[in-house]
């Protein structure tokens, strides 16, 4: 039976180390299977988050050989097994224990974003007329499983730790889903420009590359939002009209 060796981060905020484990491989195995097998056989108290094991819940995010991945969708067959496979927690958030990080900051940020505010219903039963072509773009954003891999690779958060000034790609996608929702009447552009720091994103597209749902975060969400903000805040013709009309 083939085996693979792992180096898995063990420890907490006070310190830790990569610990080596060797485990047996079976056909089609994913990294999460191997981590579970190690947990059941060699390390009962090893902390790891997971739920669906099918790429739908976004719980098992980690850095596998340095790459941000969902462990449940990373197949052993796609990794070299001639050297140890490293599995480490996300770097953009405070470590709790082993592979588990404190992602509560993301929940706080989301609560600050202005919620969906629909226009009045079109029909008496409280529903609306919306066509598929009107919702295709929003549906792309709503595929997000909140795994926070995009947050993890974003240098504004990962290297510069600007969590107080910048909400990160996940929440630009969330803003985009609301702003481009055909029924929404709220305006979030000023928030995006100021408290959410969208200007700090210099569109390196690292987030788009790691998105397990294939959402084109930079091109479809962030850049159009930046354009809307420019139209609102910096367009000289518009400024002039605003000055004259007071609106």
């Amino acid at each position, binding site marked *: 039976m083939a085996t693979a060796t792992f180096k898995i981060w063990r420890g*907490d905020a006070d310190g830790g180390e990569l610990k080596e484990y060797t485990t047996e491989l*079976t*056909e*089609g*195995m*994913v990294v999460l*299977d191997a981590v579970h097998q190690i*947990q*059941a*056989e060699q390390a*009962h*108290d*090893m*902390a*790891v*988050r*997971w*739920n*669906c*094991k*099918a*790429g*739908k*819940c*976004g*719980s098992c995010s980690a850095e596998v050989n340095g790459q941000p991945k969902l462990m449940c*969708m990373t*197949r052993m067959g796609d990794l070299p097994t001639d050297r140890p496979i490293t599995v480490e927690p996300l770097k953009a958030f405070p470590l*709790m*224990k*082993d592979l*588990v990080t*404190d*992602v*509560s900051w993301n*929940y706080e940020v*989301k*609560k600050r974003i202005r*919620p*969906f505010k*629909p226009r009045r*219903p079109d029909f008496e*039963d*409280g*529903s*609306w*007329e*919306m*066509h*598929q072509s009107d*919702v295709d773009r*929003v*549906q792309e954003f*709503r*595929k997000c*499983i*909140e795994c926070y891999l995009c947050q993890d690779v974003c240098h504004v958060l990962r290297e510069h730790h600007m969590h107080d000034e910048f909400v990160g790609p996940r929440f630009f996608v969330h803003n985009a889903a*609301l702003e481009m*929702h055909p029924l*929404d009447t709220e305006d979030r552009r000023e928030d995006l420009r100021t408290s959410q720091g969208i200007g700090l994103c210099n569109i390196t597209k690292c987030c788009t590359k790691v998105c397990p749902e294939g959402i084109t975060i930079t091109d479809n969400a962030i850049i159009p939002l930046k354009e809307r903000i420019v139209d609102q805040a910096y367009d000289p013709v518009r400024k002039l009209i605003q000055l004259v009309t007071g609106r």
Partner: protein
Amino acid sequence: MDFSRHEHDVLIIGSGGAGLRAAIEASAAGASVGLVCKSLLGKAHTVMAEGGMAAALANVDERDGWAVHFADTMRGGQYLNNWKMAEIHAKESPDRVRELEEWGAVFDRTKDGRILQRNFGGHAHPRLAHVGDRTGLEMIRTLQDHGVHQGFDDYQECTVTRLLKDGDRVVGAFGYDRESGQFRVFHAGAVILATGGLGRAFKITSNSWECTGDGHSLGYHAGAELIDMEFIQFHPTGMVWPPSVRGILVTEGVRGEGGALTNSEGRRFMYDDIPPLYTNQTADTPEEGWRYVVGDRDARRPAELLTRDHVARCILREVKEGRGSPHGGVFLDIAWIKDRIPNGAEHIKKKLPAMYHQFKALADIDITEEPMEVGPTTHYVMGGLRVDADTQMCTVAGLYAAGECAAGLHGANRLGGNSLSDLIVFGQRAGEHAASYADEHGRGTLEDSQIEAAHREAMAPLERQDQTDGAGPYGVQFELQDMMQEKVGIIREEGTLSEAVEEIAALARRADLIGVIGDRKFNPGWHTTLDLRHLLSNSEACARAALERKESRGAHSRIDFPDKDKEWGGFTVVLKRGSGGGMEVRRDPLPPVREDLQKIIEEQS
């Protein structure tokens, strides 16, 4: 004793569709609400639901209506359903679905701009509001994003181990915070259980680690009655290969979009055995079935869209008789529809994006080119806490249940799509009635002795560290899962069910002795040990109920009693904790169906 104490009018345990919907409703009623999430908020098992939510919106076929939906639900449940719940569900689900749209959900659309509905097993008309094959994600995210602005408190990564009582009434709960290991005591006027299912009692399952039936067991140990526990739904189509993905769900939506089940001889075997209850509604030939899929109103449903219990048994039969696929399943082919519609491959990717991705990434299969291999997987429990149809109150005062941990709506077999609508219809009702109960009755008294007992129980495995044997919590859990799969699985009989009851007792004795290493901080070994008690208690309930029901009906199949028995059609199996602590089993007669509803059932047959 170290613990933090939290006061609420309504405490909700479970934060999937039902728990979130209940939290929104109870908050709207002015109650102070605490929502306990076993995982992070928004990661509950609801997120995995794929196909859609059933509601007779009649957007695609105007012949649909609540009466048709009601009759379909009762037929699918083999008439063991709580007919009043089935009536409420059919009548209220359209409003609950439209409400999700009001809160920001973006469903797939019809050509005239309304919510699109798709075909599913056992539903007479296209009825499932959906978003591709990720409807559960849309539901939970909508409820989460709306919910966080309603003012309730959430307790994420928190597990409840005991309910706390004041005399005969539930007034709180004891649990631990997974991240820190700190204990929490909740004191509340009313408690709602919305903990989902118990699929982790079985080896092959579509359920996540959380689904250990905590609510079933918490309620049972607090004195509430469980019913219908013999009815476990084995979804006919789970992945079978490679081994590490065995059990992961393949949505019924594949068959709703025209997917064909075939055996190793290429035969559409579902057409070989159509049950009498469904002959009037089922196509005679695959050709007629396809015409139904593409909207021919005179055609009848393809045989692949028969109810899940029946499809699962037919798949087992093909495998057993040597006509299975290479890895012990059968074939599910959606690629064939490319010959029938333009841009077929694109259409498949658009309607089933998660399935396309899942097979491509995990099994190297392109479903637009090749058939999938599928076989049954433990998916859903119809049984659960007995509740009042209107209020969702359990048989213990102050305790409510909604969603999968409550029983009644689905009877002997649930129709696909009726679960998501169940969550929002009865989650809303539970929230409303729990809030008014709390308002009326106040919070009751929480006695220290109960908190101490719960604390002792939770600490015990950590205090037995030095006794740790080789198997540990995971070993006992794996043995239980193997045994349940083999002896309380799809096909059952007296001898092995009796063995199962004895083996569960033996495993429970071992579980009581498990010691775990490490401390309380995010320690999965400790969590698994504490969850085991729920799994064992629920497994015993399933095995005892299955032993009691001496017939085959819906999801319950007995080799020794292979036929449906008319007399058994009038009873439900009830489980209750006896005064001596043992599990007591009894049969209760079902109340007769109200006259006007009986008339609907007859008209729709």
